C-alpha cells in the first residue's frame, strides 16, 4: 500500500525515540496546507498586473505540504529526540547551561514588548527605551564600566565590536598597532574575532598552574600591541590572580585589556572586570543572564567600556533625555553592529533576571556556581583528577587520562556513556591545552543531589571502563540514535533535502 501513497510513515515510537522521524518534505502530500490567513476583503488582482513578467518566477516555489496535525506530530516527535536543560543536567563547561526562570519567557513574550516595530519613532517606544537604558545602567554597575552597547547579537559579535572599539581608540590617537595577545587556552571565538578586527594573534602559553605566564606575556608585549583578550576566570576555570600585574604591564605599553565575559557567571556580584583593570568587557547574556540557549541561540553580547572608550560605542544608543527617552549617536561612534537595536527580547529577559536577582541574588549566583564546581571537582577527585590541583571557579577541567592509560577508554567514551545515564556530556577536548579534558560546569541552579547523581554515574562508568571497555566505546545505546558517522557527513555533504543521500 505505502509504495503507491505519497507521504512518509508518520507514526512512530516517540516514547522510545529510536525510530527515524521523516523530514517535513517526506511527510508532505501535495495539496495539504495548515495556513489560515485573515480575510482581508481587498479585491484580488492578477500578479501580472502588479509585477512585470521578467521578475516573476517561472515555476511556483515548492516548500512542503502538511496539515496542522502533520506538523504538530512531526515537531512534537522531534522534541522527544532532544535533550534540554528542562529535562536534565547539562554540565557543559564554558557554556553555563543553567536553568532559566520561566518568568523571563513571559517577559519576552509580552505583546506590549514583542509587537513593537523597531523603526517606530522614539515617542512611540518610550517603554522599550527606558528598559534599554535601565539595562545599560545595570550592566555598567555589574561590570564596573562607564558605558555599554546593547547591539551585539552574541558573545563573538561582542568580541569583534570590542576589537573595533580598540582599533578606533588607537586610531583616534594616531596610533597604529598590529597585534592582540591571547592565551593559548582561549575560546576559539577570540582568535577568530582578532583576525576580523584586523589584528594578528599573538598566542602566549599558560604556565603549569593553568594561568597566564606573566614572563611570557611581558616578552610578547611591545608598542605594536593593541591589547590583550582575557577571560577571568579563564577557560580552565581558574582565576588569574596576577590580573593587576597583567593589567599594569599591558597598559604600560599603551595596550587595552579586553574581558571575555563568557565566564562572568563565576564572579557576577563579587568581582567586577572594571576593578581588575579591564577597558572593554563583553557579556554573554545567554550564559549569565537568563536566556535559554535555544539549541544554539539567540543570545546577546553587550559590550561595556571604560570612560575613555564611551565616545566610540556603536550608535545610536538609547538615552535618558530631559524629557523621556530618545536615541543618541556617540561622538565618534564606530557605527552600527546590528540591523536594529540588538536582540531586544533577549535584553528584556536579562533585565527581568537582573531585577529579580538584584545585587544580593547575583552574588549568590556566583557563589553557588563556584561552590558547585568545587564540590564536584572534589567529589570526582579519585575518578577524574583535576587538571590543576587548586580550587577552581565556576567550572572544573578534569582529565580522563588516567582512565585512558589504564583501559584505553577515552574522554569521548566517558562523555558518550554519560548520555546513556540521562546526563548531557561535559565539554570534551577543550581547552586544547589539557590532555583528555572533560570540562564540567555544573552552574548554580543544579542541586547537590543532582551533582551527586552525576558523580555516581561517572564513577560507575569509570568502573565499567575496566570491566567492559568495548561496551563504553559503543555507548550511547539508549539515546534516540547511536554514535553518528561524522566522517560520512563531511565526506558527502547532504545539507538539504534536495542533495543526494550520502550512502
Amino acid at each position: 500500500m505505502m509504495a503507491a501513497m505519497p507521504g512518509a510513515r508518520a507514526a512512530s515510537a516517540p516514547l522510545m525515540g529510536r525510530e527515524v522521524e521523516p523530514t517535513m518534505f517526506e511527510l508532505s502530500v501535495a495539496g495539504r496546507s495548515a495556513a489560515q490567513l485573515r480575510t482581508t476583503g481587498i479585491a484580488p488582482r492578477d500578479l501580472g498586473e502588479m509585477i512585470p513578467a521578467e521578475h516573476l518566477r517561472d515555476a511556483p516555489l515548492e516548500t512542503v505540504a502538511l496539515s496542522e496535525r502533520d506538523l504538530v506530530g512531526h515537531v512534537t516527535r522531534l522534541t522527544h529526540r532532544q535533550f534540554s536543560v528542562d529535562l536534565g543536567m547539562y554540565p557543559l563547561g564554558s557554556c553555563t547551561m543553567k536553568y532559566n526562570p520561566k518568568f523571563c519567557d513571559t517577559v519576552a513574550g509580552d505583546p506590549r514588548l514583542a509587537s513593537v516595530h523597531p523603526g517606530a519613532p522614539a515617542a512611540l517606544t518610550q517603554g522599550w527605551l527606558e528598559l534599554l537604558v535601565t539595562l545599560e545602567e545595570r550592566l555598567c554597575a555589574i561590570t564596573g564600566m562607564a558605558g555599554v552597547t546593547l547591539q551585539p547579537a552574541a558573545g563573538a559579535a561582542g568580541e569583534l565590536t570590542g576589537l573595533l572599539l580598540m582599533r578606533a581608540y588607537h586610531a583616534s590617537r594616531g596610533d597604529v598597532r598590529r597585534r592582540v595577545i591571547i592565551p593559548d587556552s582561549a575560546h576559539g571565538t577570540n582568535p577568530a574575532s582578532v583576525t576580523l578586527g584586523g589584528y594578528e594573534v599573538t598566542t602566549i602559553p599558560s604556565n603549569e598552574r593553568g594561568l597566564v605566564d606573566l614572563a611570557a606575556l611581558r616578552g610578547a608585549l611591545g608598542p605594536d600591541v593593541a591589547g590583550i583578550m582575557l577571560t577571568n576566570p579563564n577557560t580552565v576555570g581558574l582565576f588569574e590572580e596576577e590580573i593587576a600585574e597583567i593589567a599594569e604591564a599591558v597598559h604600560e605599553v599603551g595596550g587595552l585589556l579586553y574581558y571575555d565575559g563568557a565566564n562572568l557567571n563565576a564572579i557576577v556580584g563579587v568581582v567586577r572586570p572594571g576593578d581588575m583593570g579591564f577597558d572593554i568587557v563583553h557579556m554573554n547574556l545567554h550564559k549569565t543572564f537568563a536566556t535559554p540557549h535555544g539549541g544554539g541561540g539567540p543570545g546577546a553580547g553587550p559590550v561595556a567600556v571604560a570612560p575613555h572608550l564611551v565616545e566610540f560605542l556603536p550608535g545610536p544608543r538609547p538615552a535618558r533625555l530631559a524629557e523621556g527617552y530618545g536615541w543618541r549617536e556617540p561622538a565618534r561612534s564606530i557605527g552600527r553592529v546590528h540591523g536594529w537595536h540588538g536582540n531586544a527580547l533577549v535584553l528584556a529577559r536579562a533585565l527581568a533576571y537582573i531585577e529579580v536577582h538584584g545585587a544580593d541574588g547575583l552574588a549568590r549566583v556566583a557563589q553557588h556556581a563556584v561552590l558547585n564546581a568545587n564540590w564536584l571537582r572534589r567529589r570526582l577527585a579519585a575518578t577524574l583528577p583535576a587538571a590543576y590541583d587548586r580550587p577552581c571557579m565556576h567550572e572544573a577541567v578534569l582529565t580522563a587520562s588516567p582512565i585512558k592509560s589504564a583501559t584505553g577508554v577515552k574522554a569521548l567514551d566517558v562523555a558518550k556513556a554519560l548520555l546513556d545515564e540521562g546526563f548531557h556530556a561535559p565539554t570534551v577536548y577543550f581547552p586544547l591545552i589539557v590532555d583528555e579534558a572533560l570540562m564540567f560546569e555544573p552552574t548554580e541552579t543544579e542541586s547537590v543531589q543532582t551533582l551527586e547523581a552525576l558523580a555516581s554515574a561517572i564513577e560507575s562508568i569509570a568502573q565499567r571502563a575496566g570491566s567492559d571497555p568495548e561496551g563504553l566505546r559503543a555507548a550511547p545505546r539508549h539515546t534516540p540514535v547511536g554514535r553518528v558517522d561524522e566522517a560520512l557527513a563531511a565526506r558527502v555533504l547532504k545539507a538539504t533535502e534536495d542533495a543526494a543521500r550520502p550512502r
Partner: protein
Amino acid sequence: MLSFIGMGSLDDLFAHIPEAVRLAGGLDIPAGRNEPDVADDVARWGDANRAAGLTCFAGGGAYDHEIPSVVRALASRSEFVTAYTPYQPEVAQGVLQALFEYQSLVSRLSGLPIANASLYDGATALVEALNLAHGATGRSRMLVSAGVHPHWRRVAATFAAGTGHAIEVVPLRDGVTDWSAARAGDDVAAVVAAYPNYLGALEPLDAARAVADERGGLLVVAGDPVSAALVRSAGEWGADVYVGEGQAFGTPLSFGGPYLGLFAVREDQVRRLPGRIVGETVDAEGRRAFVTTLRAREQDIRREKATSNVCTNQTLIAVTAAIQLGWLGTRGLADVARACAVGAHALFDEVTRLPGVAPAHGSPFVREFAIRLARPAGEVVEAMAGEGILAGLNVGALTGGADPSIEDPEHVLLVSVTERRTRAELDRYVATLGKVVR
C-alpha cells in the same frame, strides 16, 4: 557542601582572588525583588510603548505577519528552547533535524544549493557575505548598491574597519542601481544588489550579474524571502551568495531582535561558509541521523583562520522559521506573498491619488513602496499614530541624512502591507493620510 570542600564560608571560595580587585559592599544595583513585583515594571514599560497598539504599515525588513498559535506552541517547546548547540548529536536529533529542514527551506527560497544553520540577522549576514567574497577572490573592493537597506550598509561599513574592505556604495537612479556610476577597475570582490531593494523597487539583476562577471567578483543578492514566493530567486538571477532577513517567518517584530540571518551559497563556496551547517549521516546501526558538519571551518577548530567568528547563532529563530514555513506550506507562502502584494498595490494606487502624495520612484514593487509626501514623513508618522496607525518608516530616519539611494529622504515614507491588513484598515489609512498630509 562547604565542609566537603574544606571551606568555612561562601566567601572562602573567592579567598584566592586578590583583595584589591574584589568588590566591597556589593553591586550598586537594587536588591532582588519577587517576580510579580518586577512584572509590574514590565507592564509599565509595555504600556509606555504606544507603538504596540497601532495597526502596522511599517516594514523595512521587519514585518507584521500572522504568527499562528500552532507555531508559537511548537517553537516554544522547552526541548528546543533550553537545549544547547547540538554538540552531542545522539541527544540532539530534534534540533539537528529541524535545522536540516530549515537549511533545505532556505535553499529553496534562495534558489541556491547550500544554506547554513542561521546567522544573527540580515545585516550581519551581509557582512559575512563580504568576508566570504574576500576569501574567495582575495580582493577587498565591494560594490554595494544603495538599494541595500541603509542599516545593513552601515553595519557593513562598521565591520570593514576591521577587515579593511573598501565598500563603495553605488547610487540608485529612480529606484534602480546605476551600476555605471561605480568606479572602474576589475579588482572587485563582491557586487551586492537588493531584491527588492529597501525602497521596494524590483530591479532586473542581470545588470548586477554582468557587473560581477566583468569585474570578477561574486554576486551577492540581499533578498526579501517572502517576495521570493512570487519573484525570481537569487539563484535564478545567478547569485553566488544569498543573504536575507528571516524575521518574516514566525518571529514577532520584537523591537528589532532576535531576528534571523539567512545565508545560502553555491556549492563552490561551501568550504567558506560562515557559521554552522547540519548534514545528514547515519548512526552506528545505519539509521539516518543528522550532525553538524564541515566543522573545520569554524572558530572552535580553525581559530584565527576560521571563515567567521560566529559561535552562538539564532538556532531557535531558525527552528521557528522552519515551523512557520511548515505551517504555510507551498500554498500558504504563495498566498501570503500574493496578499501582501495585492494589499500594497491597492494602497499604493489609492494614496498616490491623494494631493501631497506621489510615488518616490517609478520602479515596480512587490509588498512595500515608497511615497514622497508634501510634509516631512516623521511628522506624518507622529500624526497618524494619534489615529491608531503606524503609517510606515520615515526614510530619512533610516538613512540618517542624505543618501545615494534617494533625494530628500525626510519627505519619503516607506509603506508596507502584510497579509494581515484588511480593506477597512486600508480605508482608514487612506482617509487619515489624506487628512494629515497637507
